[in-house]
């Protein structure tokens, strides 16, 4: 009798955390999985499942969105922090969240869920039809003249971040233009461009690494674009491996190019 009671308490103490071991608010989570798209009466929302839990990633919006949706036909690398916000579209909210479409095709990633009255989007910033005249997340038009940016002093460092294994995309022209502007205002006499091969320590302790040559490819691509868009200084190019930086905390920052401008 006593022995069975002991076994009960042992099981209760040891197994209880297992039974309730869902993600907790503030927990960092990082995984690669298929995205799932769920239709709603307005715009669709995007989900992904990992370790038995469903996570809400983002909704369809437009190019101005801070978090842009993944793609069916590809796995997605998800890096985020579990939020205590109410679930959205049936998924645990990750805030902030960073998504990167994995480049190779995966035709098993093909789940489209129909609209379901239990899941509605009540913060839709942009309808599926024509826009209302401005981008969903664009700031309101300025009412007065823009303040001149302060004159830069000393060496300036700018990071550009990339999707997994990918080079320059539609996201980069603004960053590259800013670098050119900065180079002109300094003015830069030396430009060093460092491309980094990214690495990710996933929640399951897997070390996910980008392709071997991606750091070099990114650095050369950025250098070519800067030169083509008017940079007169011949940049110094190097590349390195971001493996040692991967610690499971914002590892997306390892997928980068760093441009250092020295006056």
């Amino acid at each position, binding site marked *: 009798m006593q022995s069975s009671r002991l076994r009960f308490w042992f099981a209760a103490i040891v197994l209880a955390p297992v039974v309730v071991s869902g993600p907790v608010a503030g927990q960092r989570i990082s995984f690669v999985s298929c995205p799932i*798209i769920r239709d709603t009466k307005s715009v669709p929302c995007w989900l992904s499942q990992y370790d038995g839990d469903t996570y809400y990633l983002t909704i*369809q919006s437009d190019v101005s969105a801070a978090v842009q949706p993944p*793609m069916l*036909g590809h796995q997605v690398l998800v890096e985020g922090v579990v939020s205590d916000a109410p679930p959205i579209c049936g998924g645990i909210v990750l805030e902030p969240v960073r998504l990167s479409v994995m480049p190779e*095709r995966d035709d098993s990633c093909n789940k*489209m869920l129909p609209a379901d009255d239990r899941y509605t989007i009540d913060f839709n910033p942009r309808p599926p039809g*024509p826009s*209302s005249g401005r981008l969903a997340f664009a700031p309101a038009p300025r009412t007065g003249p823009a303040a001149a940016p302060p004159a830069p002093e000393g060496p300036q460092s700018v990071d550009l971040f990339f999707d997994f294994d990918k080079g320059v995309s539609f996201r980069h*022209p603004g960053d590259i233009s800013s670098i050119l502007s900065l180079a002109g205002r300094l003015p830069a006499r030396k430009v060093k461009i460092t491309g980094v091969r990214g690495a990710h320590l996933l929640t399951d302790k897997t070390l996910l690494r980008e392709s071997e040559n991606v750091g070099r490819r990114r650095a050369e691509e950025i250098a070519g674009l800067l030169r083509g*868009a008017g940079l007169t200084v011949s940049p110094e190019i190097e590349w390195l491996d971001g493996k040692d930086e991967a610690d499971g905390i914002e590892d997306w920052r390892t997928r980068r190019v760093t441009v250092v401008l020295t006056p």
Partner: protein
Amino acid sequence: MNRWAVFWVSAFLGATGIAAPAPDQWWNPGDDRPLPAYVEYANTWGRLGVLNADGPVTTDGHPFFEPLGPNGRACVSCHQPADGMSISLESIGSRWTATNGSDPIFAAVDGRNCPNLPAKDPASHSLLLGRGLFRIALPWPPVDAAGKAMEPEFTIEVVRDPTGCNTGPVYGIAGEKREISVYRRPRPAANLRYVASSGFGVSPFIGKTGMLAAIDPDTKRPVNMNMMADAREATLKTQAMSAARGHLELTKGLSEQALNRIRDFELQLYAAQAFSSEGGVLDEPDGPTGLGPAALAEGRDGVLGNNTSNYVIPMEDKWAKLPKGADAAEASRNTFRQSVQRGHDVFFFRTFWIRDAMHINTVGLGNPIKRTCSTCHGMHMTGMDTANGWMDVGSTNHPWALEPPESPWAKKLPELPLFKVTCRKDLPPHPFLGREIYTQDPGRALISGKCDDVGAIVIQQLRGLAARAPYFSNGSAATLRELVDFYDRRFNIRFTEQEKIDLVNFLSVL
């Protein structure tokens, strides 16, 4: 000429029954008759209005209209006013019959499937006679703006060569000229103030890829790269020069003065359907403000469409609720106009899943996206895409491109070449098509050398469609209905029959 003046001309032509093709509908190079400030030409759906905003054009001595090269062609040969400044399949057929194949449009350089084929044999011109396609010979490997050979991200093989050109000893990919031949429709040389506008989305970088934008050699400023199927020419002037050397075979090209005259003429020229056989006069002063050529002449270019202030094709719901009509003719007209309005609403508000379309599903929207036709056809007044508007909707790429199934019993065999593109293994694959892509026309990739650009074609303007069938860069949609059907299949839209009819009617009045 303003909207009222155009309306009265159009109304007069309608009242007098001038709808049959005029004897001077076709413009021969060197005709030397003036092009009026406003003229209408009949077509299957009604009449197209052609408006010269700067007044009548003296064509005598004008480089757009004069035969400048050895093959007797002028720009007007393939940019006919009656055909919305393109050239319709119907016109091509008529010219073959009328001239027994000797019209300059059938010149060997690009009017035959391959220059080495025999003259005046319809088989030598089957792509022009059957689909309205001219041969476009591009260098392989691609060259950069300075003419230096690039290292493309892919290799290319010829899988099928019905014209014999791509495997031939002279014009083949491995031949003397190191050319690759693709076959495309001429784009309309009207409403180009819109097409060449730098008013939206133009920066030193291509908005959809982040690569460097093309530069205007005169101003040294970036351009919108929205003009040709593959955006290979930066400006109207560089396009005119390239066309003069290629299509007109003018060895020395054109003078600066001639280029400026061509550009100036094109920037003041507007073409749109002005009269609908079923819907009546389209540019009535109290009618929808987006229809007719005068609306284009008065409109703002470089404006992204929306649903509050700048509709893509403004109609203001003016044809949404119309009376039954005092008589049968008015009732029929109003029924058609209401169908046009519904077609407009389908175009803007009927959502469907846009999936696996390169350069739309890859620009931060996700794959798929639930949107509408106007998501891509979004520019005010023309329905083009925003700047750098090349995209792969599947019009040339396997598995969506029109390919008649081959069989021992097939009466029609594939007409276009088929290429196998193999993308480099050390680079990411095309996100939707992988590393092996089959295509009839690699499109933008033949200029950029990028795997992601295979089959990507710059979206065309939607104006004057009624005058210039067939559609798509490869002429694969013979009619407006086939064009709608293509999208219905491609994106599994499942339009109702009524929606298809309404969409076709809407497109017919643009």
